[in-house]
């Protein structure tokens, strides 16, 4: 429709391949740089707190998205334990193919934080996970840390 003629033979159908042929190297930002250095060097989580909004960002922000206050001097340590606020069992990989081992992913609210960390759960079966589960971060050994969210291997349940 619209065009005065159409392709009526499947052998006449053509397509052309292409891609976006570039790579990326992201700086982590003012807040991200400090957050990952603290994990790498001290194995601890640092957030930023907006005193006016009474909200502790984790991951930390340079600014409060609610009131726009600068938070560069408002760093606070938060716990490496927290609770599962939401979770999912991913059965498909990025190609849409079934994962050999389904992956547990969760939103974790660390003690003292308002913000949520997105990460994997480990050392637990899917049927044992529920909202409210108490978990703890498992870091990679210090020398293997690279300043990435993968410096945290996963969160595992805290024995109650």
């Amino acid at each position, binding site marked *: 429709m619209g065009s005065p003629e159409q392709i009526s033979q499947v052998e006449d159908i053509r397509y052309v391949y292409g891609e976006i042929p*570039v*790579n990326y190297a992201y700086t982590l930002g003012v807040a991200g740089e400090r957050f990952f250095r603290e994990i790498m060097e001290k194995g601890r989580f640092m957030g930023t707190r907006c005193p006016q909004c009474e909200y502790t960002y984790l991951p930390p922000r340079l600014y409060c998205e609610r009131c726009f206050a600068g938070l560069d001097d408002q760093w606070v340590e938060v716990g490496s334990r927290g609770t599962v606020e939401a979770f999912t069992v991913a059965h498909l990989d990025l190609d849409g193919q079934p994962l050999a081992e389904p992956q547990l992913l969760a939103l974790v609210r660390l003690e003292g934080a308002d913000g949520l960390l997105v990460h994997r759960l480990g050392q637990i079966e899917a049927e044992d996970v529920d909202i409210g589960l108490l978990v703890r971060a498992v870091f990679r050994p210090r020398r293997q840390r690279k300043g990435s969210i993968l410096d945290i291997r996963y969160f595992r349940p805290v024995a109650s």
Partner: protein
Amino acid sequence: MGLRRVAVVGAGMTKFMRRALETGRELSWQAASMALDSCEMTLDDIDGVVIGTAPDAFDGVHMKGEYLSDGCGAWQKPVMRGYVGGGTGVFSPIQGWYHVASGLFDVVLVVGEEKMSSCHPHPQGAFLTIFDNLLERQLEPNLIWIFALEMHRYMTAYGLSKRDIALVSVKNKRNALDHPCAQVAEDITVDDVLNSEVMVWPVNRLDVSPVSDGAVAMVLAAEHVAKRVTDKPVWIDGVGWHLDTAYWTNRDVSYPKYVEYAARMAYRMAGITEPRKQINVVEPYDPFSYKELHHLEGLLLCGKGEAPQLTVDGVTQRNGDLPVCPSGGLLGVGNPIAAAGLMKVAEIFWQLRGEAGKRQVPGKPITGLAQAWGDLMQVGTVVVLRI
């Protein structure tokens, strides 16, 4: 038409840098919070947000407007990202204008951001993907090809010399020495430009603006708010934009007709009948030296092929009869694409308010114009400001 009047009441910007530590969201916040501070407003005063940012392939973030939104002050607010390639930076305040002029919004925050440094091996690589996917990308074109093709056509059509065109780089890079955010300000000569490395003849390295990280923001307000928050509102009296056919190889690229159409649209709205007489200061888009000239002609500020002579005669110097790119432009301040276009609007805002510091043009300008250009030599965006 009885349009609702819209004013610019505040502006802010980051430094323009080859590579910033800040993420794009952080850069956006820095510029946006500075713009709010400049007019003593807070996020509570903002009804809506407009984001301008150019190809996602630079930042390497899909749906980049979404990604930047909280840094742009859009948390739980109406926010939109308008997009016309390189023309985006001047289009964003146009979009802010129609938000406010529609009567649906009183105060809108407009933010332009670019973080090109994330792209490897070189941000130029991302430009391959602006070419036609079926017929052009296979030739592995470089962005500068098409500028060189256009510049050569422009030079041939009007018998122009590279020497005269190079003067634009000299002027803008020198103007940028007075801009505290400038990335590539320099005192150079025409010979420096002509002797710099040939990239794609006739374009030499110093004919070209750099790749940059940076952000710019401004606050737009309806008349009743503007008059309350400042005694120096700068009115958006005319806006225009036009996008020509994508079949750029079917057009005569020696003249930017789309810029002329955009300018005529803005002039009609602003009641400008003799642009050369009525406009006091201009920030045309200058990603390449010849582009400033091309655009001055498209803006009807001189005849076709006459802009180089204006430059030779010093008319476009800061103290000339028609100051052009007093900021230092993209060639001097830098080119974080959408932020660079918005920087031009901010420069006119500061010039008309007499707040441009060492860059201030003499004679208390009343009417100024900012213009950007983009896509496949295809889009013109124009804003006319008055105090």
